[in-house]
């Protein structure tokens, strides 16, 4: 059994807002759902599957009711920022199994307007909560060890932000539109060693949505055909503290699964959406996915190698979470959306990859230095 080629992304929508104090979170979900349904050329009554994560207020019952959906398949898997990449894979499974035919996936929220609800605690709470793991220091711990083991430098990490900023200058909705230099990044204030302010992503309100459907229905619609041909998901944590190694992520498992299912290799990929909560997130994912060898990510990202039209692997051409948008502190949705834009030929002309027929969208969720999930999607233009 495989989901290869069983599901098509027929609709995408990224909310243009980056600050929405005058809207409710449920409202933002409804707005991105409307946007994706319209992009696909469908109507709400066509939706028979709904995929949502922890950002949807109240979970499945209130959201299905609020949106007025009538669905026969529901999946509320929550793996933080990569939930939507996992939803895409699960939607393909559901469509392949005949459980639904037109699936809606939504993400929305307002971390810029107000504080986020606290993370749910697990069995580890008494043994970890007091130590104050946040996104900044959990990713900082990974970067610190990566530098120790492989000689990775702050300047190399900075190139990732530089590349994202080169792309963001062409995105009218980007939260940060100014091109920055390596010096700008390494001279920005230290937030949590060794990560500087400009190693961090933006905090934005907003959201995004997808419509995932069958081949037959996708071919009856008007959009260019983009389909999922490989998917992987995995989780990693300290696991009792044995053989702790914070220099790799669960991407070492999700990536090969997706590439194997798709029957392609990293060398075949024309465009890469890589989750960029921090610069170190991108560097580790590129290694884990096989775009370069472990420990050589620093060299790989340097000198503009991730800039579209300049380097070998154009990444996050919308400006990514580092510069454009990171709605609800969950970057997986926008990774899929920009990959679909590239495959459709709808990216900004200044960053559109020529003949872009194969792309990867990959992300992690949770805390890279503590417990996290990873999911990899290989997408193809038909």
């Amino acid at each position: 059994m495989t989901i290869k080629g069983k599901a098509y992304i027929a609709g995408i929508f990224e909310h243009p807002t980056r600050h929405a104090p005058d809207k409710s979170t449920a409202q933002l979900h409804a707005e991105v759902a409307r946007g994706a349904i319209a992009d696909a050329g469908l109507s709400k009554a066509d939706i028979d599957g709904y995929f949502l994560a922890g950002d949807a207020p109240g979970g499945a019952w209130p959201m299905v009711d609020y949106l007025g959906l009538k669905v026969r398949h529901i999946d509320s898997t929550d793996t933080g920022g990569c939930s939507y990449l996992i939803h895409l894979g699960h939607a393909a499974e559901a469509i392949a199994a005949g459980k639904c035919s037109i699936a809606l996936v939504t993400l929305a929220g307002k971390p810029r307007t107000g504080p986020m609800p606290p993370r749910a605690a697990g069995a580890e709470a008494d043994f970890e909560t007091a130590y104050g793991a946040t996104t900044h220091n959990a990713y900082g711990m990974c970067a610190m060890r990566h530098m120790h083991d492989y000689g990775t430098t702050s300047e190399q990490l900075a190139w990732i932000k530089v590349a994202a900023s080169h792309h963001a200058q062409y995105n009218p909705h980007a939260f940060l539109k100014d091109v920055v230099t390596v010096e700008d990044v390494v001279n920005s204030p230290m937030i949590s060693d060794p990560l500087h302010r400009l190693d961090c992503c933006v905090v934005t309100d907003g959201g995004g949505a997808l419509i995932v459907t069958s081949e037959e229905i996708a071919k009856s619609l008007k959009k260019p055909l983009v389909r999922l041909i490989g998917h992987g998901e995995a989780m990693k944590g300290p696991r009792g503290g044995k053989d702790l190694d914070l220099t790799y992520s669960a991407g070492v498992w999700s990536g090969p699964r997706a590439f194997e299912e798709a029957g392609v290799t990293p060398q075949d990929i024309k465009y890469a959406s890589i989750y960029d909560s921090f610069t170190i997130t991108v560097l580790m994912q590129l290694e884990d996915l096989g775009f370069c060898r472990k420990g050589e990510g620093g060299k790989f990202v340097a000198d503009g190698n991730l800039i579209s039209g300049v380097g070998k692997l154009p990444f996050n051409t919308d400006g990514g979470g580092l510069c454009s948008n990171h709605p609800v502190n969950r970057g997986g949705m926008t990774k899929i959306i920009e990959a679909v834009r590239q495959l459709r030929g709808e990216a900004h002309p200044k960053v559109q990859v020529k003949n872009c027929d194969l792309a990867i969208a990959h992300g992690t969720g949770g805390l890279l230095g503590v417990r996290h999930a990873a999911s990899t999607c290989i997408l193809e233009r038909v």
Partner: protein
Amino acid sequence: MSEAKKYPTPVTNPETKPFWDAAAQGKFMIKRCKTCGDAHYFPRSICPFCFSDKTEWEESSGEGTIYTFSLMRKSATGPYAIGYVTLKEGPSLMTNFVDCDLERLAIGQKVKVVFKPTDGAPLPFFTVV
């Protein structure tokens, strides 16, 4: 360095109560599996490696080395350093480094456990030896 920081009181549960009772006596406990022989942390009743239920409490030396760390420059309670320590007995665990110069932390440094009070059982932290 200010030590006025208020730490959360461990909730505890039947599975972990022996750990917190020992902590109140100044002992830092880990769990070891009699079946596979490996120690783990935080303590579980069933071994996370071989899934045997033959785990037993063992007092750790409380000595280890810094695997990694990150100094959070700002927070509501001031700067603090989070990190992982690899214990002499094997397992690595998350902690904060206290009672030492946070600007001079380094991977590989030797550290030892120290307990800090809460309204309930004391919490383990690590300091540079």
